[in-house]
């Protein structure tokens, strides 16, 4: 079907259009960018409508030969795992561009062009069903992000941009070697040279090889997530990036890592992945606690939110490491939550930074009375990030802990403390910024949110509530794919080595959707 290709490449139409526009008309450039970010979103709503929730497999697939001599094809499709990540991307992009109206004042044309290029690359990576195609999008994503940080970022932007570029490149190039190894092994044993994901799913490499290949994939994705101790590029990148860049980085790019684990690293190398699950759970837990503790002492709002990402993505990885229906669904749900909540947190920080050109917590205090609309929105966003019941964050964390408790008990117990710590650092931050005496004269002139800014936040707030109160429509679309995914993993494990007690031993029986 054409719709997925249309979603992926629609932003490029905007790129071509923007390229032809004169660079000195900021208003029309901004409007044009906004207009061109809408078609992908509208198309992806169509995709959602057309998505058959009962079908666990890939839908709306399209396939065309690209480099036939190597069995490489342009092959795309969505299932319950990638469906909402595509929507998240197309949903956030117009908001980010709208937010960029106030944030970006120089070289608007180039900024908007890069944003749209980035959107195509991210969407492509989420729907790619061919390893080569995925790799192309995965790497292509890096370039616009690098420029967004490097050109429009803060003081140490160049350092941050290059650090991000190099970190990611190390991981992804080793993954490329692993991809090649896998593909040639598959060819040697099955006779067919292919990069097609679904065919490679069926192939089991020997355990020893799987360990190496999984390690290479895991390294690439763990850097992107980022998992402790590979997270050090993230605070720099986040802090230096312009607001829009931070939102996309937190909202979508980091999901690329967790999605990569789920879509590629684990199902391609199930035996090795199963061995590594305790390590992943352990590192995820360390990340949860470490990220929260470091967040707590950050004097800079943006750095605080950046470290909170490390903590939140720890939860995503913990849920995934459970490899049961609750854990994986919770993990997927939490990816969306984090995209919305942390994206919105960065937008909140952006609002205040635009007005004061500082992000230091100590500069603020008592803003509640002066910026009531802003303060209310910030509070909802903050509470959603804390995981307050009724808001989206709770659903995800609950499912993750539920799924993980039976599998990685110790890790789960420690991770729960991360929930508490999360409440501490976020609420403390909120308290210091919003409550107390408003005694900094520089803050006395601050204006509350403009209509445009409110327009940026409203859709996100709506989603925070919807996802918090009525998760059913989301989970019901994820569940068939997740369950099919897990049972396929179990089958492969059982088939691969019946002598070794593997996943079957500690996998939870699949429980229906009741109680959620």
């Amino acid at each position, binding site marked *: 079907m054409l719709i997925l290709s249309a979603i992926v490449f629609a932003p490029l139409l905007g790129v071509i259009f923007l390229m032809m526009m004169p660079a000195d008309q900021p208003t029309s450039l901004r409007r044009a960018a906004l207009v061109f970010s809408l078609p992908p979103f509208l198309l992806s709503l169509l995709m959602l409508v057309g998505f058959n929730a009962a079908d666990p497999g890939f839908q709306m697939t399209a396939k065309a030969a690209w480099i036939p001599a190597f069995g490489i094809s342009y092959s795309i499709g969505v299932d319950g795992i990638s469906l909402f990540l595509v929507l998240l991307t197309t949903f956030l992009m117009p908001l980010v561009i709208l937010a960029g109206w106030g944030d970006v004042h120089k070289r608007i044309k180039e900024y908007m062009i890069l944003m749209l290029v980035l959107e195509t690359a991210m969407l492509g990576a989420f729907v790619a069903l061919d390893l080569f195609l995925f790799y192309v999008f995965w790497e292509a994503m890096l370039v616009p992000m690098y420029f967004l940080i490097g050109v429009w970022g803060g003081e140490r932007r160049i350092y941050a941009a290059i650090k991000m570029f190099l970190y990611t490149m190390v991981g992804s190039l*080793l993954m490329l070697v692993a991809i090649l190894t896998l593909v040639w092994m598959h060819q040697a044993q099955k006779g067919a040279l292919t990069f097609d994901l679904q065919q490679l799913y069926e192939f089991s490499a020997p355990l020893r090889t799987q360990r190496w290949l999984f390690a290479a994939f895991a390294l690439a994705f763990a850097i992107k997530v980022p998992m402790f101790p590979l997270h050090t590029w993230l605070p720099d990148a986040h802090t230096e990036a312009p607001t829009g860049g931070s939102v996309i980085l937190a909202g979508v790019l980091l999901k690329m890592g967790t999605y990569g684990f789920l879509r590629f690293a684990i199902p391609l190398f199930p035996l090795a992945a199963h061995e590594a699950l305790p390590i992943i759970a352990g590192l995820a837990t360390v990340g949860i606690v470490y990220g929260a503790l470091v967040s707590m002492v950050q004097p800079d709002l943006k750095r605080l939110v950046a470290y909170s990402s490390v903590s939140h993505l720890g939860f995503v990885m913990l849920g995934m490491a459970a490899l049961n229906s609750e854990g994986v669904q919770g993990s997927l749900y939490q990816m969306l939550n984090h995209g919305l909540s942390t994206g919105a947190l960065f937008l909140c920080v952006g609002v205040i930074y635009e007005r004061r050109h500082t992000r230091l917590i100590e500069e603020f205090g008592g803003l509640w009375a002066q910026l009531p609309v802003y303060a209310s929105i910030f509070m909802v966003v903050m509470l959603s990030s804390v995981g307050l019941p009724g808001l989206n964050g709770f659903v995800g964390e609950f499912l993750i802990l539920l799924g993980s408790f039976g599998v990685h008990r110790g890790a789960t117990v420690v991770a729960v403390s991360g929930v508490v710590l999360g409440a501490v650092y976020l609420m403390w931050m909120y308290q210091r910024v919003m409550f107390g005496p408003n005694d900094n004269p520089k803050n006395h002139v601050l204006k509350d949110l403009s209509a445009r800014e409110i327009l940026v936040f409203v859709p996100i707030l709506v989603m925070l509530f919807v996802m918090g109160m009525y998760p059913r429509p989301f989970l019901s679309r994820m569940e068939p794919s997740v369950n099919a995914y897990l049972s396929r993993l179990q089958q492969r494990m059982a088939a691969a080595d019946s002598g070794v007690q593997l996943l079957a031993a500690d996998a939870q029986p699949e429980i229906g959707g009741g109680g959620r």
Partner: protein
Amino acid sequence: MIPAPDISYIALLPMLILTVTAVVTLVADLWMEGPDREGLGWIGLAGLVVTAITAIAMWNTRLSTLSETLVVDRYGLFFTLLFCVVSGLTLLMSMSYLETTEIQTGDYYSLVLFSSLGMVLMATATDLIVIFLGLEVMSIAAYALAGLARSELRSNEAALKYFLLGAFASGFLLFGIALLYGATGNTALPEIGRRLTTVAGEQRLLVMAGMGLLIVGFGFKIAAVPFHVWAPDVYEGSPTSVTALMAVGIKAAAFAAFARVFMHTLVVFKADWTSVLWVLAVLTMTVGNVTALMQRNIKRMLAYSSVAHAGYLLVGMVAGGPDGGSAVLFYLIGYAFMTLGAFAVVIALGHRGQANENLDDYAGVGFRSPFLGAAMTVFMLSLSGIPPLAGFVGKFYIFSAAVKSGYTWLAIIGVLNSVVSVYYYVGVLVRMYMTEGTVEVTAPSSRPYLFATLLLTVVGTVLLGLFPSSLFEVARQSFLALH
């Protein structure tokens, strides 16, 4: 009495056309008045186009002539076409570049054409002596070209250095040929290949020594570490368009002969030369990339980058077989476009009397000249191997061949080297887009030939990255023509 060999003029046609064009440019120069020599460039381009058309027309034939010392097969034709493209683009950028230099002589154009003739000869020769002949035709023209900016000291230095070290390397090559002749009693590659299967004892030793000397000789021309020390000085000192020709054309010609001799004729000794090339590849990639990190002059940086790329190409040779061979051929096409393009940008930034070759001169250029900035971005990203550009696909094929042949560690070292290279390639972009500078940039459209060069190389780099399939098939067929 030695019987006169049969000459098939049809088989020689591409080379004859090139020779005639080169001579015509040389003579036409006498009738040119004033300093403007663009007309000669047009003659050269026309000659190259006719050569290319002839080569395409001969694609489905396989002719040999002059007692089988020259074989016009797809392998040779592939390189003939590649050299036509490389020399054509070099001439095109020269037509803008020479205006800003003191090089106002017609010799320039005919020297480029003679050098290209040498390259074609190297790629079509199937006799070691003729390969040597091609190498010398190519190199002697290049020695002269390097020193053409006569009043510039560094150009003189480049020419002298290149000549002395080049002569030395030629000596190695010739000695290697002599030893192989000693072991097999022949200089014709097919005959050597046949006799190598039966050599034993002392003869084997001779072959080993001969191979080692050939590797030194070719290693010099492709600028493989440790035979690369001439490259930075020569690249920096030579007129920029000549540097581009050296970095692309001469390297590709050397690889054409190198691959023909080693991957085909000496294939029975593959186990022996592979281990040497493995070490050379690792050294070349690593030293090239790491040294490039520290450069402040863009031509020196590109020189080390071209050393590093020779390393990637060597990985393809180590991988061997049709996969490795066709990957090398494909890589050379992509490498040609992106490297020529990068040098065209270097030219675009220079003015008369002010070369602007320091990396710091690139500060802020990206926004002051969006086209130049975008073009350089494409070349730098392609050179560092970011998809979907030619450089990435080339690396993909090469490393894929390496992994398939079991050289996984070599592939890992290769990709880690790519990470290192990102730092300096992207460093150019950092300067262009993330710092402010003062260097004045002429609008590229005011120099139409340069503009055309940039446009062609950008389009080549991007299209080759997006749709590599058909050209890879051509590369594969060309390499298979060796067998």
